[in-house]
């Protein structure tokens, strides 16, 4: 393992890669700050740039963008009460009241320290857990992979919140349907191409991600009238950024607890930063006694530290299933998987054997990413947040341009732009009907692999589906899937235990 860490360190401290971390964190912070544009869009916009560079640098850049986007999301939650992404919705509960009483600087600093601690603890866990899990998963066969993919897809649906499960399942199936368009990889038969040459290779993953996220989110920000630009904030008057010793002492246990909880939730397929943040907030409010309990929702330090530590810890945690099993647990890691595959790298148990530099450098650069966020981004926040003042009429067409050219410059086929606009219109329609988009992307990316693994498992098993109950690992995974799917029935009890309140209709998976 030490060899691996050294290899990762060597790759991660290369000047290009260090630059990628810094660049990723900056760009991510900026995009994450824009209300409406989440980490998935931020990463999608980066993919075309990463095609021209080394895979390790590419994935390091995207990981930097991911943390940056979550950090940026917290900033806009605290400063303007408009969460940049779903993972930071809870941050606004206590962060904005703090900013409102003139403690914006302290709130931002606390958010940054909590995120840093959460990210660091989680990166250490990842360092220990990932290689172990990768070794175990080397014994996995096609049948187990098939079962794991079914588990991943079901979990995303099951965790998508009250009243959203059926919608998420439908979107997953829709994603799987889209993945069947094109030439069948096993038999070479054309499926759903309707005679079009453009569809022979299937729908491009980048095109789908850009159209359903970056393009659609930019359009939605125009469609839904908001007053967010009604009152430009004076970003230079943030107040002191210092925390007193008592305050640090007060939040330290919360940060520790929430980091561990966040990591564990992040590892679970389908959960991710949003649920981790809600859960950590709920747990901490439940543990609080007396006055400190009443403070929750009115600018409590603990109420801000808990979700911030948890969402960053969960972001690193969500890399565990991606790097070790090749199975993404959220929309964000799904898009990274898509990018890795297009670099010609197959994430999964073989990754740390075949491409150790990618595997380890991502883990090491996560730590660097947290340091960059703390020592570079925090002092620069007043300046970065001024970019929020760029008027919408200028910003939105630029985002559209980057999304469109991002797809065009890879294929040089202007037909792709027309398909993109069509898919974007459909995505807007579905977003208005409150159908979640992440399961679509996940289904689309896992569809091909799922079919291949099922086919292989059937071949190995004499055309019988009996492997589903005869192989202990497969059976266990399938049982977990069933449990996860029926768990929402017991959701009320869980909510009563943790006293979780969700604001709005439902949570969305980032």
């Amino acid at each position, binding site marked *: 393992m030490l060899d691996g860490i050294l290899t990762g360190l060597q790759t991660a401290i290369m000047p290009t890669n260090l630059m990628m971390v810094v660049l990723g964190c900056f760009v991510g912070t900026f995009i994450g700050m824009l209300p409406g544009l989440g980490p998935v869009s931020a990463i999608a916009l980066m993919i075309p740039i990463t095609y021209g560079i080394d895979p390790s640098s590419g994935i390091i850049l995207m990981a930097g963008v991911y943390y940056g986007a979550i950090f940026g999301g917290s900033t806009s939650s605290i400063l303007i009460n408009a969460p940049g992404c779903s993972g930071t919705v809870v941050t606004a509960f206590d962060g904005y009241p703090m900013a409102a009483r003139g403690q914006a600087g302290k709130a931002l600093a606390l958010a940054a320290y909590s995120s840093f601690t959460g990210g660091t603890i989680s990166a250490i866990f990842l360092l220990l857990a990932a290689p172990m899990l990768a070794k175990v998963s080397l014994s996995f066969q096609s049948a187990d992979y098939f079962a794991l993919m079914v588990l991943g897809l079901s979990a995303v649906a099951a965790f998508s919140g009250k009243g959203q499960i*059926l*919608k998420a399942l439908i979107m997953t199936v*829709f994603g*799987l349907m889209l993945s*069947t368009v094109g030439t069948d990889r096993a038999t070479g038969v054309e499926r759903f191409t309707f005679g079009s040459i453009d569809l022979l290779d299937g729908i491009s993953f980048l095109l789908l991600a850009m159209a359903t996220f970056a393009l659609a989110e930019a359009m939605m920000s125009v469609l839904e009238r908001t007053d967010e630009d009604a009152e430009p904030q004076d970003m230079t008057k943030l107040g002191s950024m210092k925390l007193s010793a008592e305050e640090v002492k007060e939040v330290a246990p919360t940060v520790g607890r929430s980091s561990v909880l966040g990591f564990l939730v992040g590892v679970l397929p389908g959960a991710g930063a949003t649920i981790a943040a809600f859960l950590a907030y709920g747990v901490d409010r439940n543990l609080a006694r007396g006055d400190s309990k009443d403070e929750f929702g009115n600018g409590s330090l603990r109420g801000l530290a808990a979700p911030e530590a948890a969402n960053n810890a969960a972001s690193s945690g969500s890399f565990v299933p991606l790097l070790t099993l090749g199975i993404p647990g959220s929309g964000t890691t799904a898009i990274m998987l898509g990018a890795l595959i297009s670099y010609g790298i197959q994430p999964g148990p073989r990754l740390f054997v075949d491409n150790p530099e990618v595997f380890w450098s991502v883990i090491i650069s996560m730590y660097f990413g947290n340091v960059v966020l703390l020592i570079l981004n925090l002092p620069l926040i007043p300046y970065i947040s001024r970019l929020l003042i760029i008027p919408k009429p200028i910003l939105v*067409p630029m985002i559209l341009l980057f999304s469109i050219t991002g797809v065009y410059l890879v294929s040089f086929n202007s037909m792709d732009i027309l398909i993109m606009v069509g898919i974007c219109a459909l995505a807007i329609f579905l977003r208005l009907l409150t159908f979640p988009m992440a399961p679509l992307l996940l289904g689309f990316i896992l569809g091909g692999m799922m079919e291949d693994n099922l086919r292989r498992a059937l071949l190995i098993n004499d055309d019988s589906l009996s492997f589903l109950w005869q192989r202990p690992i497969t059976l266990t995974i399938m049982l977990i899937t069933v449990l996860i799917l029926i768990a929402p029935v017991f959701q009320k009890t869980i909510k009563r235990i943790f006293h979780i309140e969700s604001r709005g209709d439902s949570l969305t998976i980032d």
Partner: protein
Amino acid sequence: MTLSKERIGALFFLALSILYGYFASGIKLYPGDELDPMTAQTLPFVLSGLGIAFSLSLLISGKGAGRSMGVAHLNWKPVIGLMLISLAYGFALDWLGFLISTILFLIAGFRILGEKRVKILLLVAVPFVFIFWFGLTQMLDIYLAPGRIFGGQ
């Protein structure tokens, strides 16, 4: 009666799943394929079945009237405008080339969203596109074909 968001979505996916299943039956197989336990048609049929089952469940369990879509208050005009110029950009790229079509796209986009000052339109769009073009062609070495009206392919 107004349909709820759930039911509109459910009906849409029900129709889509049925259509998908119909087209799945048209997938051509090679002779002998039908003896395999899993053909190119298997997964599409399963997906079509699942799609129908899930959308029927949503149709039945979804709330009735009351939570209609309420799309009238939304800002449709600029969104439709932006979609149209994106489509036009797709056509223009081949004919006018990258520079001209991108400048036109940005100016049109800024205008649709309410920026009317000609000075701003030009001062933002033109230098930005030139820098973007310079970055792509000179720094990243990406070849951008000239438009057909300038003799490109």
